[in-house]
């Protein structure tokens, strides 16, 4: 075993004064353990339960919680009910689909025209 990691440990009964040597004090975890063991286990659990139960009241509005509630509310309805919109025939749906395609093409071509009008003009207008 590497001797560097072999440090002897003496249990502390009081927290020592800090020193200015900045030496690594690896007894901190053990001291924490020693202090914690003086609180009864049941009291710790009770404290944790109280803290968790009141935290939503004390915290600011939680967007994730709100989103979750909204989603849960959404799934209690069937999507059939949630979806409003207009009922349509298969032929009408196909027409709309075709229109969506054509409109996309048309709008892209329009954007190209617009860009062409404002880009660098290679012929000097003077």
């Amino acid at each position, binding site marked *: 075993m590497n001797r560097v990691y072999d440090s002897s440990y003496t249990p502390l009964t009081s927290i020592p004064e800090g020193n200015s040597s900045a030496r690594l004090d690896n007894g901190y975890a053990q001291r924490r353990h020693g202090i914690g063991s003086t609180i009864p286990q049941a009291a710790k659990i009770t404290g944790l339960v109280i803290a968790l139960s009141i935290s939503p009241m004390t915290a600011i509005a939680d967007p994730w919680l709100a989103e979750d509630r*909204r*989603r849960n509310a*959404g*799934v209690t309805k069937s*999507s*059939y009910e*949630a*979806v*409003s*919109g*207009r*009922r*349509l*025939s*298969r032929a*009408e*749906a196909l027409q*709309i*689909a*075709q*229109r*969506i*395609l054509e*409109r*996309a093409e048309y709008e*892209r*071509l329009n*954007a*190209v*025209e617009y*860009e*062409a*009008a*404002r*880009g*660098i003009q*290679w012929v000097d207008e003077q």
Partner: protein
Amino acid sequence: MIYDFPERDAPIRQGDIFVSLPRAEISLKEVLIFKETELRVCSWLEIVASSEPLQLIVPVRPVAAIVASQDCDAIRSRDITLCEIRRFVDVEGKSKDTKSAKSWKNLITQHARINQKWFYLPPDKRIGFDEKMAVDLMVTLRVPRADLEECRSLRKGRLNSVADEHFRERISEFFRRYPYDEWYALDGEELKAYISEYPDITVYPWQKQGSMDDGIGQ
């Protein structure tokens, strides 16, 4: 011209040119929902609150496209991104009336001076381009990599090493364009000329009447 023709089982790489890949068009105004035996149309805002997956009818058109994903992603990632290839006249509006070789030369070599939204692809019958084409960097599509590997018969070729290097740089330049209001540094007269062409702009405080000076003595 500027194309190579890889073996059919060669791995997919950036610059590979495919034909007949599906480009889907989504409209947020008119969403076609298929529910059981019923079809409905509504806006996306009407259904966005539902967290359930929806079955939609989406119009799709087969298009030519070039692999934009980097080689390492084209080997491993779940999806591959491609840019649509369209007729050059449909991508660069100035080319509509271009006839002479000199004018074409000016248009095609703009790459060196301007960060354009397209990448030029010359005609080559072996790859199926009968006329001048261009990669439209604005229009992307995404397909599953494994599925695209199954469809390698749709790959008609790839950019050669010179064109591929250029294409790689063009993609990165395109996506790191710095957006700014190009009129911000124009002086009074220049701004007047600019506004006559684009009247909808908002001028900056230093360009307003009375704020303009020549900077001398500041």
